[in-house]
C-alpha cells in the first residue's frame, strides 16, 4: 500500500519536483484513499486537512481541522505521523514501520509513509500520509 501510494506520488511529479497536492489526489488512488491523510503545514503546528475513512474509524474522528498533537498516540493515526517533522525538514518521502500497543490492548504492526506536497504556487504546504497495519500474532 505504502509502495503504491509512493508510486502515485512519483507519478504526479512534474520532472522531479515535489508534486502538488491536487495532482496526487486527482489520480485514481482506488482504495488507498481510505488509508491516507493530509496535513496542512502552513501554520505553527500542522493540522489535519483530510483523513481517510479507515483512519477516521481508528481514532481519527473529529480530527479534521485539528492539530496533529490531538491525535491519540495509542491509535494508528497518532503513531503513523509521529515522524512528520523529519519529512517537513528534509522534504523527501520517508517510510517507517513499527509496532505499538493499541488502545484496544492489541499489539499493532504498521507501515507508514509521509511525503511532502506543494500547493498550486509551488510552496511546501502539505504532507501526504498513509498507513496500513495488522495485528501482531502472539
Amino acid at each position, binding site marked *: 500500500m*505504502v*509502495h503504491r501510494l*509512493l*508510486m502515485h506520488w512519483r507519478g504526479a511529479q512534474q520532472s522531479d519536483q515535489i508534486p502538488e497536492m491536487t495532482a496526487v489526489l486527482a489520480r485514481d488512488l482506488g482504495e488507498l484513499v481510505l488509508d491516507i491523510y493530509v496535513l496542512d503545514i502552513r501554520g505553527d503546528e500542522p493540522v489535519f486537512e483530510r483523513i481517510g475513512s479507515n483512519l477516521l474509524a481508528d481514532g481519527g474522528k473529529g480530527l479534521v481541522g485539528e492539530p496533529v498533537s490531538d491525535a491519540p498516540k495509542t491509535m494508528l493515526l497518532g503513531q503513523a505521523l509521529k515522524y512528520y517533522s523529519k519529512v517537513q525538514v528534509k522534504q*523527501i*518521502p520517508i517510510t517507517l*514501520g513499527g509496532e505499538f500497543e493499541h488502545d484496544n490492548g492489541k499489539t499493532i504492526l504498521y*507501515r507508514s509513509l509521509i511525503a511532502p506536497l506543494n500547493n498550486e504556487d509551488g510552496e511546501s504546504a502539505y504532507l501526504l500520509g498513509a498507513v496500513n497495519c495488522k495485528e501482531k500474532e502472539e
Partner: protein
Amino acid sequence: MAKSVSFEIYSFKNGNWMLDSVHDDKNMAIHQGRMLISSPHHIAIRVIEESYDDATDNTTSKIVYKEKKGEEEEKPKKKSKGKSKQKKVKGKKRKKKKKKVNFMLLVISFGGISLGLLALLAILMSELG
C-alpha cells in the same frame, strides 16, 4: 541498546548525489531504486544502508544497490577492443605481405643487376681476348 537501520536512496543530479527518499525496509528501497532508474529523470541511483548503533554512537554506511544508465552501452566498447585486435592482426598480415613483395623486388632487382654485370664482363672478356 538498539541499532537502527535505514535505507537512503540517492539520485545523481547536476553533478551531485541528492537524497530522494528514506525507507526502513531494504527490499522496498531497492525496488524503489529500480523504479527510479527506469524513469527518464534519473541517470544514476544508489541505495545506502545507514546503521546507527546507540551504544557506540557509531554510524556505518554501505552501498547495497547501485545502478547507472548507459552501463550496457559501455559493454560494447569492450567488444570493440576485440574488433581493434582483429584490425591489428589484419594490419600485421598486410605488413608481412608488403615485406614479402619488397623482398621479391629486391631479389629480382639484385638478380637483374648481377645479370647485367655478368653480361658486361662477358663483353669485356670477348673484346680483350
